[in-house]
C-alpha cells in the first residue's frame, strides 16, 4: 500500500529529537564562546549556523513531519537557531571591539615628535608695538595719521615754529637731500604729520602718529640714524594741560599697567608753549626706587624714567597750519617707540631691532 504513513511517529525522527536539537545548540554556543578572533568566529558561523550545520539540516526536516508534529519541532529548532544567532552577534560585537581596541593600541605614536615642518613667521615688535599704542588711542576715539618719511623742509621745521635760525633746528641733526635748495629733508620727527593733519582737516582733531624718523646719529647700542616715534595731537575748544596730563596718564596706564602715571617738568620745544618733559613712573620698581633692596637699575634709583616731551601747541603753529588760535587750543606729545619697546621688553641694544635676526621677531610671536 502507498500513501502517507499516518502511523509515523515524529518522536522517531532522529534529528528532530529534543535532545539532538539541544546538543546541536549547545555545541554551537560552545564553539561561539571559544572563538577568539573574527576569523574563527566566521568559521564557527559556517559550522553551526551555515547551510550545512546540524540545526539548518534539522530545520529542513520539519517539512517532512506530520502536520501535528511540525509546530512543536519548528518551535524547538527555531528557538535553538535563535539562540545561536544571538550568541554569534554578541560574540561578533565583542571580538570587533577587541579588534578595534588592539588596532588603536598598535597605532599609538610618540606625540612628542617634532611637528615644526613649517617654520613660524612673525611680525616685528616695532610694528606690533606701534599698533598696540595706536589701539590705545583708537579706543579713545582718536585716529591714526600718517605722512611721508621724506618731507618738505617747511613742514618739518618752519610750520612747527622752527625758523631757519632757530637754535633747536640745529640740535636735530637732519639728513638733507640734494640739492639743498629743493628744501626736502628726511623727517626728523613725526611732527610734520601733525602739521599736515591741521592743514587738511577741520578741528576738532584727535590724532596719533606713529612712524619712522631720521637723525644723523652714528649707529650704536643707544643711537640709530632711523628710529620710531609716536606723537599725539589734540585740537579742540578748551584743550588744556590738564587734558594733556589726563591723556598721558591714561596712555601710561594702558601701556605699562595700573599705578604707572606721568610727571611733568618744564622744558622747551618750539612746537609747544608751555612745554614739558614727561617722566613715567618706573615700571620696574614702580616708583619705589629699589628692587629687592638694591637701587633700581632701570631708573637708576630715581623712581621715574624720562618718557618724552609734550606741551600746549604754540599758537604760532596753529596760525601757520590754518587753525584759529582764538577759538581752539591744542596739546601735543611725543615719545620714542623704540625706547618704550626696550623698556617693555628689556632689550639692551637698539641695534637688535634693526639687524633683522629672525630670532628677535619669532621670540615675540605676532603680538607684544
Amino acid at each position, binding site marked *: 500500500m502507498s500513501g502517507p504513513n499516518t502511523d509515523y511517529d515524529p518522536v522517531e525522527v532522529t534529528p528532530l529529537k529534543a535532545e539532538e536539537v539541544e546538543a546541536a545548540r549547545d555545541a554551537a554556543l560552545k564553539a561561539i564562546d571559544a572563538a577568539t578572533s573574527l576569523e574563527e568566529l566566521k568559521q564557527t558561523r559556517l559550522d553551526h549556523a551555515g547551510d550545512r550545520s546540524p540545526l539548518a539540516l534539522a530545520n529542513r526536516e520539519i517539512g517532512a513531519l506530520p502536520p501535528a508534529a511540525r509546530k512543536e519541532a519548528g518551535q524547538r529548532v527555531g528557538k535553538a537557531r535563535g539562540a545561536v544567532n544571538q550568541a554569534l552577534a554578541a560574540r561578533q560585537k565583542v571580538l570587533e571591539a577587541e579588534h578595534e581596541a588592539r588596532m588603536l593600541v598598535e597605532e599609538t605614536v610618540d606625540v612628542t615628535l*617634532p611637528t*615644526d*615642518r*613649517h*617654520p*613660524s*613667521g*612673525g*611680525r616685528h615688535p616695532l610694528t606690533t608695538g606701534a*599698533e598696540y599704542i*595706536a589701539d590705545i588711542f583708537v579706543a*579713545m576715539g*582718536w*585716529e591714526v595719521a600718517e605722512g611721508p618719511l*621724506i618731507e*618738505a*623742509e*617747511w*613742514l618739518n621745521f*618752519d610750520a612747527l*615754529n622752527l625758523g631757519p*635760525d632757530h637754535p633747536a633746528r*640745529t640740535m636735530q641733526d637732519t639728513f*638733507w*637731500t*640734494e*640739492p639743498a635748495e629743493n628744501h*626736502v629733508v*628726511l623727517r626728523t620727527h613725526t611732527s610734520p604729520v601733525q602739521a599736515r593733519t591741521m592743514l587738511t582737516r577741520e578741528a576738532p582733531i584727535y590724532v596719533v602718529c606713529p612712524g619712522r624718523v631720521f637723525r644723523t646719529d*652714528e649707529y650704536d647700542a643707544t643711537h640709530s*640714524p632711523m628710529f620710531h616715534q609716536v606723537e599725539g595731537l*589734540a585740537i579742540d575748544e*578748551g584743550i*588744556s*594741560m*590738564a*587734558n*594733556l*596730563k*589726563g591723556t598721558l*596718564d591714561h596712555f601710561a596706564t594702558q601701556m605699562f599697567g595700573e599705578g604707572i602715571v606721568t610727571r611733568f*617738568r618744564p622744558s*622747551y620745544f618750539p612746537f609747544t*608753549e*608751555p*612745554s614739558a*618733559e614727561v617722566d613715567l613712573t618706573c615700571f620696574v620698581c614702580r616708583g619705589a626706587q629699589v628692587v629687592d633692596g638694591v637701587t633700581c637699575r632701570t631708573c637708576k634709583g630715581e623712581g621715574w624714567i624720562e618718557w618724552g616731551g609734550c606741551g*600746549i601747541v*604754540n599758537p*604760532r603753529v596753529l*596760525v*601757520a597750519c590754518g587753525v584759529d588760535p582764538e577759538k581752539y587750543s591744542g596739546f601735543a606729545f611725543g615719545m620714542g617707540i623704540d625706547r618704550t619697546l626696550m623698556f617693555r621688553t628689556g632689550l639692551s641694544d637698539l641695534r637688535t*631691532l*634693526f639687524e*633683522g*635676526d*629672525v630670532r628677535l*621677531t*619669532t621670540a615675540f610671536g*605676532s603680538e607684544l
Partner: protein
Amino acid sequence: MKAPLSWIKEYVDLPADLGIEEITDRLTALGLKLEAIETSGAGIEGPLVVGQVLTAEKEPQKNGKTINWCTVDVGDANGTGEPQGIVCGAHNFKPGDKVVVILPGGVLPGNFQISARKTYGHMSAGMICSARELGLGEEADGIIVLPADAPAPGTDAREVLGLGEEIIEFEINPDRAYALSMRGIARDAALGFDVPFHDPAQVDYPVADGSGYPVRLEDDGCDHFVTRVITGFDPAAPTPEFIVKRLEATGVRSISLAVDVSNYVMMELGQPTHCYDRAKLSGDIVVRRANEGEKITTLDDVVRVLSEEDLLITDDSGPIGIAGVMGGASTEISESTTDIVVEAAHFDPTTVFRSQKRHKLPSEASKRFERGVDPLLPPAAAQRVVELLVEHGGGQAAGVSEVGPGASLETREPFRTITIPVDLPARIIGLDIDEATVVKSLELIGARVAVSGDSLTATIPTYRVDLTDPYDLVEEVARIVGYDKVPSVLPRRATGGGLTRAQQLRRRIGRALAGAGLVEVVDFPFVGDADFTALGLPSDDVRRRTVKLANPLSSEEPGYTTTLLPGLLKVAARNISRGQDGVSLFETATVAFPVDQAAPIYGVDRRPTEQEMEKLLAAIPRQPLHLGVVLAGERTRGGWWGAAEAASWSDAIDVVRRLGAELGVPVEVGSASRAPWHPGRCAVVSVDGVEFGHAGELHPNVCKAFGLPARSAAVEIDLDFLISRVPATAAGPVFSTMPVAKEDVALTVSVDVTVAAVEAALREGAGELLETVRLFDVYEGDQVGEGKKSLAFALRFRAPDRTLKAEETAAAREAAVAKAAELTGATQR
C-alpha cells in the same frame, strides 16, 4: 651750565637751613633741570693737612728718576709733633714751602688708601699731594704749593683748598638764556623761595663821556657798545684764587687775569665781554659787516675767510674780532699789555648764530649772544670787568664810551609789553588760578603788571628776552604755580572713525604674511651704487635714480632706496651666516623716487593757500609703500616626515597669489624678465592688466653677490597699488549644492605654451557649467615627444539647478578640449 652753590647764594637770601637737594628740586621744577651735583674734594677722607717742607734731599735712583727725601712739619697732626718723613717725586718746591700732606690712614679719591710704606729705601709716611691726586684738576705738573701766608702746619687743608664746594650742573633749555649766569639762576632761586634777590648788575658806573676808546656802529647788528679803558695795568698780576676756583668749577680754565676776569663776569652776569691790548689798536673801533673774502686770524690762530653776513669788530688794521663769536689774534692781551680796552656790547642773536655756524666756532660767548643777552647789561658788565681788573691787576680806569641806540633811554627799544586775558593761564593750564596768583607770578619774574578789566598787561624785564607771546606768560605762571599741580583730566571724548581701510588692510597683510611663515624685518633705507650693481640692475634702470642725501652717514650709501631688496637680501644673508638653514623674510616700507622739484619755504604768519600747498606737496618725492620678500634656503624643515624643501620660484609667486586671495583681489601672473630675478623664472604680477611687481627666483649672480643659497627667491610689489584694488565690499558667492561631475583631460601642447593659456582656453571652452579647473600633473618625456609636454587637468562641472546628465558633462568637456586645441594647439592624449 655749572654753578657753585656759594656763588649763587651771593645774590639770593636763601634760608640757611635749605639743603642743596631742596634747592635743586625747586629749580628743576622751575625749568632749570638738575643734571648733577658735584662736591669738590669728594672722596678725600682722613687727615689732609698743611705741611711745611723742612728738608728735601734729591736722591737719584737706578731707574733714572730722582726723588726727594723730605722731612715735613705737619704740626701735631701726626700725634707726635715730630717731622714726618715723606718721599716725593715732584720737584716744583723747596724747603720752606707750604704744601698739602695726606697722612697715613687717609684716603684719596678713587679709594686710594694711604699708609706708611717702604719705598726707595725710606719709610715714607704719607704723601705730598698734587691737584690731580686730590681730584681738583687735570694738571699734574707737580704738587700744590700753598701761598706763604697759608695757615700753620697741621691745620686741616680742606678749607685752605676750598674743598667741599658744592657745584650744581644744570641743563639749560635754549629759551632760558638768562639762566646761563649766576644772576639768572639766583633770580629763579629767589622767586622759587620768594626771598630777596640782590642783582649783581646793580652797580654804579661812571657816565659815558666819550673818554673811552672811540667806537662807531655802522650796522644795526650791534645796538649797544661800551668801551672802557684801563691804563697802567700789571700784566704779570696773577688771577686771584677765588676767581680761578670759581671758573674751574664752571668748567673754564684759567688763562690770564684779563681773560679770567672777562669770563668771570660772563658767568656772573651772562654778558660776554672782550679785552683788547690798547697798544695794538689803531684808529677807531668800527662795527660793520665783512666784505666778502676778507680775512681774520682768530684767537685760536686760525685764518678765517669771512662772509658778507659776518658782523665784525674792526679798526684801521682791518677785522679784530667776529662779533660775539671770537676775538682776533692781532689785538690779543699779552704778557706786556699795560693798557686795556674793555668791550661790552649787544649783538643781534641771529647774526652771531650764523657766524658761529659758518665758522664752526661755538663758544661760551656765542652761546649766550645767540640765545639772547639782556640788552641793558653792557655798561654794568664793563664796570664789573674794570673793577676786578683794577682791583687785582692795578692801574686805573681811564675813560668810558657808550654808543648805539641801546645806550640811551630816548633811543633804546621800549620795554616789551604782553597783554593777555587774565584767565588765559587758568584756561590753558586747566587749573583754577586766580588773578592774584597770575599777577604775583609775573611780578616774581620781574614784570610790572597792570590789570584792566578782563585783561592784563605785563611789562617784561629786559633779562627775559625769551618772553614775547601770550603763551610765554602762561608757561611762566605754570612753572611758578608748579607743573605738579596740573590735574589729570581726559579731554572730552573724541569721535574718530577708527582705523582707515588701508590701515586695517596693512595690518591684515602683515598678519597674513606672518601666518604664511614669513618673518618681518625692519631695515634702514640707505643704499648705494654697489647695491644696485649687486642686483644686476642695468645702468639705465629707473631704480638707480635715488633721492640723494647731502650728508649720508656712509659715502657708500648716499641714496634713499628705490627697492627693498638690497636691504632684505643682506638681512637674509646675515641670518644664514648666523646659522639659519633657511629664512623667509618680509618688509613693508616706503621707497622713494625723486621728482626734481624744489619745495618752497613759506612764511608762517598764515596758512599757505591751496595752490601753495599743492606746489609744496608736488615737490616731495613719490614714496609708494612696497612689500619685499626673500625666501632663502630651506622653506620647510626636514624631519621624521621627510627631507627639507628648499624655497623656490613658485613659493615666491605663491606669496603674491595668497595675498591677492587674502585681500579679494584677483592677481594675474605672467612671465617677465627683470633684474634681480632669473630671466627664465621671473613672474610679473598684475591686476586688471596693471603690473604692480615681480616675483620669482633670484638670478644666480645675485645669490652669489649677496652670499645667499642658490635658488633663493624674492618678491617686490607696490603694496599701495594692491591695497587700492581691494574691493570696498566683497560680493557674497553663490554656489550650487547639486552633485558635482568630475572629468579629467590630458592635453599635449608645445613646451612654450603656458599653463595659464591652456587653462584659460579650457575655461572659455567649457562654459558656465565648469566650476573649477586645476592642473594636477605635468609630464615631459619620450612618451609625448620632443618639444612637447603633457598637461593633466581635473575639471569639475556643476549646474546650479539640477544634476548634470552624462551627455551634458561630456559635451562641456569636449568643448573645453576643442577650445584648447584651437587657442593653444593642444591635442588630447
